[in-house]
């Protein structure tokens, strides 16, 4: 996965785009309960970053996490089954949108707590290296997360102990409805530099630029450099969460939304492919997703009898709550 093949990058952004659109339909139809935080508009970041990683590298994501999971190589069908709460899902239906994880492909999981994954991935990468791998890791987070103390503590640990973690801040301008300028004193790169880290700003709408910048950072890290930060400037095309489709929250001027949507990573990367090639990839993605939807919807729901399965890895059985 470490090459910058334009077709591969296009396939990934297109897959995430269409996955999200399908998922939104399934939210509307009631098949996905609880809604999702769509990654629409930010696809170039997950695609570009993950293309710079090896299979044995690890990533940890966010509440807006589908893109990271897919780009790192999880099966879209099992991912969609997870969102639909099916027993065949990545997490056997126990995690859902905000916890989708596939440790087999190095995805430690989406994470519903903003700022939480930075320290976890730092520990995971440190441990993998102690155990002999030369893996690196990526912590994805939003512009809101840089105000969370736990993430800043993780910057310090990673920098001090030179753990090769790439901190990727997806700055989409808002934390829910809070504009970044009203929330972040100083700057995002400045926060990383304060811990002695190299920080780079990149156009998150351009998958190839994201890839190039990350690949260089990963190469430095792999060669023994410390952690780095990349601020990817992006824009969220849709709602913070699908609940906004029902309740209009007034915080982004329509002109701003239009301007943001005009730089579309799928279009930008698509334009780099010959038409025929792009059409072929689109068809391939469509087929994958049609199969994924079928797989998800045909899959069984987990049995409520097993509601507490997996609660304890040690085999401990919890006392039930009945009277």
């Amino acid at each position: 996965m470490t090459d910058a093949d334009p077709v591969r990058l296009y396939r990934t952004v297109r897959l995430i785009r269409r996955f999200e659109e399908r998922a939104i339909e399934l939210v509307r139809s009631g098949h996905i309960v609880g809604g999702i935080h769509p990654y629409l508009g930010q696809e170039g970041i997950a695609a570009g970053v993950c293309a710079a990683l090896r299979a044995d590298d690890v990533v940890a994501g966010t509440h807006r996490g589908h893109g990271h999971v897919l780009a790192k190589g999880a099966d879209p069908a099992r991912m969609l089954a997870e969102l639909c709460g099916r027993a065949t899902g990545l997490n056997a239906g126990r995690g859902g949108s905000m916890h989708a994880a596939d440790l087999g492909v190095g995805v430690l999981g989406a994470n519903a707590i903003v700022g939480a994954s930075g320290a976890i991935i730092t520990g995971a990468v440190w441990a993998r290296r102690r155990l002999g791998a030369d893996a690196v890791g990526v912590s994805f987070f939003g512009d809101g997360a840089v105000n969370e103390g736990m993430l800043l503590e993780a910057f310090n640990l990673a920098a001090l102990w030179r753990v090769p973690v790439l901190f990727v801040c997806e700055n989409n301008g808002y934390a829910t409805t809070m504009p970044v300028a009203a929330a972040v004193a100083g700057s995002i790169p400045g926060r990383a530099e304060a811990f002695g880290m190299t920080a780079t700003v990149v156009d998150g709408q351009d998958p190839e630029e994201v890839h190039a910048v990350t690949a260089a950072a990963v190469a430095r890290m792999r060669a023994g450099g410390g952690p780095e930060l990349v601020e990817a400037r992006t824009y969220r095309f849709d709602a913070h969460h699908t609940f906004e489709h029902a309740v209009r929250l007034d915080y982004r001027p329509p002109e701003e939304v239009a301007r943001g949507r005009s730089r579309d990573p799928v279009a930008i990367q698509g334009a780099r492919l010959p038409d025929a090639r792009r059409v072929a990839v689109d068809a391939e993605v469509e087929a994958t997703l049609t199969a994924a939807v079928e797989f998800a919807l045909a899959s069984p729901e987990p049995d409520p009898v097993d509601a507490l399965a997996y609660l304890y890895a040690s085999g401990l059985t919890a006392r039930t709550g009945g009277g």
Partner: protein
Amino acid sequence: MPRLSYRRALTRALADELARDERVFLLGEDIRVAAANVTSGLVKRFGPERVRDTPLSEQAFTSFATGAALAGMRPVIEFQIPSLLFLVFEQIVNHAHKFPLMTGGQCAVPVTYLVPGSGSRKGWAGQHSDHPYSLFAHAGVTTVVPATPADAYGLLVSAVRCDDPVVLFAPAGALDVREDVDAAALVPVPLGRARVHRPGDDVTVVAVGHLVHDALAVAEELADQVSVEVFDPRTLYPFDWDSLVESVARTGRLVVVDDANRSCGVAGEVIATVVERVPLVAPPRRVTRPDGAVLPFAPALDRAVQPGRDQLLAAIHHVMKDG
């Protein structure tokens, strides 16, 4: 008479307290646009200085409120997720709660922590579905869980006026409850005072939060077989022990239904305190979440982990039969 919703009762309580007392102000994430649909209209009426959006810095803004309270203000913090209280547990329990005693009575910390949407929100999964009120009852922080719109109004008003920190949980399962109430009938409800929603002679059912409505439904269903008294503590700490003891002394039987983990939860506390003080004619029973429960994502599993009416019914039948 207008139908008042639980949510709007909270909104009205905040508005009334903001209007009544200049020292009251609100702090939280996305409260200006009212993402949680509780602070609707307040920024327009009271301005952004008193309805303050904060960056994602829960620990700092919780202690910011402590400091503001020490200096004479009466902050109300809205938390978007119950588990954010885990993140600020230190700030509430080790600081706000302890300041008055540790300073030898030099100060008070009148802060209200408001959690609209505690417990399961259906599909929000493991990290967003907790009901951690027992933790605060253990720490000794005043803990309130209103079941009805009028109580939501009256208890929130009292919380804001209380000179100690108060955590108010508004269960997701109660947010859509509506009630016929005259605006003029909305009054402060004293903290630490229980409410009997339905008198009965055979068994006292203590129900917490939204489960009061389930208990009432079950009581109605059983009306021709068992006379069920539905007891709503409203405040879990300090608990209205005298009223409960009076009730159980009459009925001789006790069932508790509580949507929180079983071990060391408030349901266990209710049973312990009652048996210390009142002889029962049958062993008491409780219906709770299982020990150590983590809510799985899939809807059927999520439901299976929460206390159900069938379980409550079974528990009532048991205590009737055993006694």
